């Protein structure tokens, strides 16, 4: 991360995520209109805008504290299905990194695995259900490397590729499941936002 993997570096990476979500929110909403209720981009954008405001107010936190702040803010501003899911993901990630001052490659990999575990514990989705889990599972598996940048790069690439794999799937969880066969042929909005988030983190880590 440009500022390294200390607290400010993580905060900067989260700001990059907020910018990427702001950039993509119309597209995320469009995807959600196809197979959901047309609010996913709006939900995520509202959440990450609130995160940025909180980061502005409270600087100099350790990585874990930043992730916990993201978790609590998403939880209390996003709503919908994705709010508690991403909230839980960041909360578990925060717990995983503990109170270290500096994240390393292993810590990031562990955080990603914890995040995935949290999403699955809350949402009960399995791979193939056409949810964000379909992006998180390959991302967590791919999260290997010698540096934080490498780990995130690998995870982001895997998540990015996973988005396309959700297109043919018939949804079995979330609102899209009500479409049955009609949900096939569209990318899952939550898998897409997962790819956007990981992509922004990876970019930020490259510095």
């Amino acid at each position, binding site marked *: 991360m440009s500022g390294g993997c200390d607290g400010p570096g993580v905060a900067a990476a989260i700001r990059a995520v907020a910018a990427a979500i702001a950039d993509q929110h119309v597209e995320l909403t469009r995807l959600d209109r196809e197979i959901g*209720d047309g609010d996913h981009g709006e939900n995520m954008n509202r959440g990450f805008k609130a995160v940025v405001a909180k980061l502005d107010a409270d600087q100099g936190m350790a990585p874990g504290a930043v992730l916990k702040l993201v978790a609590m803010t998403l939880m209390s501003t996003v709503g919908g299905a994705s709010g508690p899911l991403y909230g839980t993901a960041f909360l578990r990630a925060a717990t995983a990194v503990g109170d270290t001052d500096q994240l390393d490659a292993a810590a990031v990999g562990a955080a990603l695995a914890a995040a995935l575990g949290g999403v699955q514990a809350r949402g009960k989705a399995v791979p193939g259900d056409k949810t964000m889990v379909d992006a998180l599972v390959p991302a967590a598996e791919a999260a290997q490397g010698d540096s934080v940048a490498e780990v995130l790069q690998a995870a982001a690439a895997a998540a990015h590729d996973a988005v396309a794999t959700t297109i043919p799937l018939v949804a079995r969880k979330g609102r899209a499941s009500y479409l049955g066969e009609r949900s096939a042929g569209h990318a899952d909005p939550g898998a897409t936002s997962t790819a956007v988030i990981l992509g922004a983190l990876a970019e930020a880590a490259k510095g």
Partner: protein
Amino acid sequence: MKKIINDPGNVVSEALIGFAAAHRDLVRVNFGPDYIVRADAPVSGKVAVVSGGGSGHEPLHGGFVGVGMLDAAVPGAVFTSPTPDAVLAATQAANGGAGVLHIVKNYTGDVLNFETAAELAGAEDIDVSAVVINDDVAVEDSTYTAGRRGVGGTVPLEKIAGAAAARGDDLAAVTAIAERVIGNVRSMGVALTPCIVPHSGEPSFVLADDQIEMGIGIHGEPGRRRMKMEPADDLVADLLGPVVQDLPFERGDQTLLMVNGMGGTPLLELYLAYGIAAGLLEKQGIEVSRSLVGNYITSLEMQGMSVTLLRLDDELTQLWDAPVHTAGLRWGM
């Protein structure tokens, strides 16, 4: 998109300002987090009944806060579940020491956010129990979906659970009554037109001039199938048939028949549909002993309707008849 709004981002909070002003005798509204509570909350010693969900379904849920129904309602953004902190705050504000029942419509977002809130409330030693209403028979295959959605049945559920709490039932008893309603209520809806979520600005789906979406949810989620528009006689039969068969309702059953508008359908058409539904039930020997016709759980300006049938026993009938004073439903006081 022509809507009577200012900034699409502020629709819910501006509407809450108006709601608070129009019903100051009945409710108090909290902003940030947003929730609506009875003016006299918490009612000490009474079980509190709390519900919530995305906005855009008015009068549900805020319009059902008051004496004899909900103690608090938590409105999310339009068609977006409220967040756990808001649900927690409403739960705290409503809690009169006898525990809180969460009434949750079965949508992933609502379920997850209320679950999280219940955990948080538990951590603060508030007794919370939750029921999940899933009365939408349009969802045929609940194994391969997020399950049946909570739709029209939510209205009698909130009324009857609220009445049980008002007569002094404890949390377990109110929860049991709520489960009894859920076990005996079934619904199905149809959309003639889509609706437009303010911040999206685009119709939730597109229907041809002669097309309808049968089995719609309350957010413009798709239903069982697209089909050609048909005369009211057929339309109502197509809605009522699956509802009756599902429970199934049987000859001799006493029922509450609710014909609900999705927001943009004239009352004239709803009464016309009610007449057809009542006639069909009569032919099957199913007795309609209570009825409700109007816009109670809506999808913004969507045109369409839903049919809800609740099998009544004497106790449920008494609880339905019990006095209620809310913005959206009022009798006996």
